[in-house]
């Protein structure tokens, strides 16, 4: 066990730092959102010309999109999770534009790399990597949430086009997106997983209507997408017809920067400690209350555990070992922790939790109230806590699948 990086990696870190010092000034950094701030949490990533020019240089040096071949606009480097982590750490420190976040780079690009045609890769990947083509995901439907494979949006081949009708829901950034990658039912006679295909849909096609979906926080970060006789060129099918379920399971297999998953949780926790120091409860700072102190340490224990689990996953990945249970538990462990941190914050705030965000006297501008609601949002999004429990029990512990069909 050794938490220092070897000389080879420290040299590499120095190279990355030199590159950042030459190509990305303090002035540039000052204009960027805090990498751990709310804007970054909401996915705000700079795509202006300065950021794009910088990203292109960073790709050229092999610092970004290391798993994507050069011919599709990537950095093309041998997998090395330690280097990927160092790059992420240094870019974060310099507040320099890193890889684009969002479902295009994280979900569509790996899918196209594995299943796309040459033409699809050349057409879509380079623009997606630079944020020039923005994507939304068309998976969930009103009747197909956890049971995604029961989705009913239909696509019928008419000549050289698929004609798509149906409804998608929980579509983040649908209003800002240029394209949607969607799962649609093309073989209504086949058993449910076998009848699904993966289609790329231009959001400007006639017949698409996007309606903002207002969530419990009062904001509208999601949308409903209605598709009525939307014509999609047949060449926009990814993978084989009826193979969409398998196609959609592609993930980034090559490497991932594995430290950093707990950054936002750490920030929320530190914010909670600041809040407990600043807020008076019945005549003394909340942090002097032994119950609050004990519970803060309880939460920090779980936070440390998740942070060091990040080191462990990174090490397993660097050694080429399968993480198994260690990786499967992380979504549940981190989202339940986020929820419990927000919950303690609400208790520390006490009766002032009655004040909504924006009310001038609300502690921390009411951000913890919003965080409390969002902590439930992330517990549900991308596979609810109970679905995670099924995955952990079945794939991690080897318990039998239940009688789901």
């Amino acid at each position, binding site marked *: 066990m050794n938490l220092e990086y070897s000389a080879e990696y420290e040299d590499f870190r120095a190279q990355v730092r030199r590159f950042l010092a030459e190509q990305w000034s303090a002035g540039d950094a000052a204009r960027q959102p805090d990498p751990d701030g709310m804007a970054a949490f909401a996915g705000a990533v700079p795509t202006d010309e300065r950021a794009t020019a910088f990203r292109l240089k960073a790709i050229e040096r092999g610092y970004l999109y290391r798993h994507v071949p050069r011919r599709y606009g990537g950095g093309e480097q041998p997998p090395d999770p330690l280097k990927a982590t160092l790059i992420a750490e240094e870019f974060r420190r310099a507040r320099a534009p890193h890889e684009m976040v969002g479902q295009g780079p994280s979900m569509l690009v790996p899918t196209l790399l594995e299943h796309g045609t040459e033409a699809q890769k050349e057409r879509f990947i380079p623009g997606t990597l630079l944020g020039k083509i923005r994507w939304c995901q068309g998976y969930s439907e009103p009747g197909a949430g956890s049971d995604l494979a029961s989705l009913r949006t239909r696509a019928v081949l008419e000549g050289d086009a698929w004609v798509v009708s149906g409804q998608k829901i929980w579509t983040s950034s649908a209003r800002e997106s240029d394209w949607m990658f969607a799962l649609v039912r093309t073989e209504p006679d086949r058993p449910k997983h076998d009848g699904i295909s993966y289609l790329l849909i231009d959001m400007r096609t006639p017949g698409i209507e996007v309606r903002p979906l207002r969530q419990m926080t009062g904001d509208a970060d999601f949308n409903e997408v209605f598709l009525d006789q939307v014509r999609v060129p047949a060449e926009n099918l990814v993978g084989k017809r009826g193979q969409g379920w398998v196609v959609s399971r592609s993930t980034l297999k090559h490497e991932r920067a594995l430290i950093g998953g707990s950054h936002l949780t750490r920030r929320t926790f530190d914010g909670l400690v600041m809040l407990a120091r600043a807020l008076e409860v019945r005549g003394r700072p909340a942090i002097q209350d032994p119950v609050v102190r004990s519970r803060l340490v309880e939460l920090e224990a779980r936070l440390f555990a998740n942070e060091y689990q990040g080191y462990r996953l990174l090490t397993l990945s660097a050694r080429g070992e399968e993480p198994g249970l260690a990786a499967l538990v992380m979504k549940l462990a981190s989202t339940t922790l986020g929820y419990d941190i927000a919950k303690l914050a609400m208790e520390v705030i006490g009766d002032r939790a009655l004040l909504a965000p924006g009310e001038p006297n609300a502690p921390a501008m009411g951000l913890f109230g919003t965080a409390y609601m969002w902590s439930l949002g992330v517990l549900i999004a991308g596979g609810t806590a109970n679905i995670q429990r099924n995955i952990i029990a079945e794939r991690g512990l080897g*318990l039998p699948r239940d009688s789901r069909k």
Partner: protein
Amino acid sequence: MDFGLSPDQVLLKQAIRRWLETECPTTRVRAIMESDGGHDPRLWEGLAELGVPGLQVPAAHGGSGLELLDVALAAEELGWCCTPGPFLACALATAALVASGNAEAGARWLPAIARGRAIVTFALGEEGDEWDAARLATRARGGALSGRKPLVPYAAIADAILVAAEDGDGPGLWLVEGGARGLGVTPLKGTDMTRRVAAVELEATPGTKIAAGRAAIDRARDAGLVLLAADAYGGARRCLDMTVKYALTREQFGEPIGTFQAVKHQLADLAADLDPALSLWWYAAHAYDHIPERAERHAAIAKAHLTDLYDRAARVATELHGGIGFTWEYDLHLWFRRAVFDRAFLGEATYHRLRAAELAGW
């Protein structure tokens, strides 16, 4: 950057596990548990041949000179197998002897501990759940100790006891030899019968001061906290594994009970808390030797968190086993009781959480 075990560490774990599974199945655990002293010298000799009591003994004194992480990996395996005996007592005493820097005491006792020839234990806690070296009532005057240590592991078979006490200069550590004048040791019936405790009375008992100040005491306590966390992880993991196995074979309503989501979800929740907690005690053990500024706080946090989880694992396991889990005949209660020891010894979870809050400057 490598936050994982070395090949040697993996081999160490495997060697201990394999040996214990052969030599100390639960039938032998029960036999030792039901014996008078709760100690089987032959088992201890075997562990000494494997090098277990000498892991943290410096090479100059005939040990392996390894780090706390290596000792903790052994503790994890002993926790998994529910191994009875004075491992923890000797590990605490070894940490205290090493931290005391006292050459004479080290030369006299460390080689014997490493070879399994001497049982040495550590007496810190006092009446009223007191585990703080700054608040001890045991007094030393002119080389004689007076006071009472109500819960000392394996004091009844100890060749020497390291006693935390106070003299005119404040806290310090004294070595009292077994059979010394005025030393009274009363074996007690313990909840966990795999780690025996005894009450120690000191009435003007002669002792040798081996360390001044509280540093050596705190250092031994921190080692103990990490080792309890590791034992707790091993035990909790065993409870989880046993219950998964049971859920795969026990059928009700015509299906293995592991098919039911109520069962799956309880086990998944436990796994989701337990698996990352491994990284927490690994880090705490690593910090003990390599990150001094984080060692004390992480030891406290790891002990509180892991022993809490162990308690929960033992409860969930018993509950999911149903009636059979509540019987004496079934082995689960061995771990259930061991969880009680890990939680209570050296101070409860909340006590260490409040210490950790203090150490953070909150």
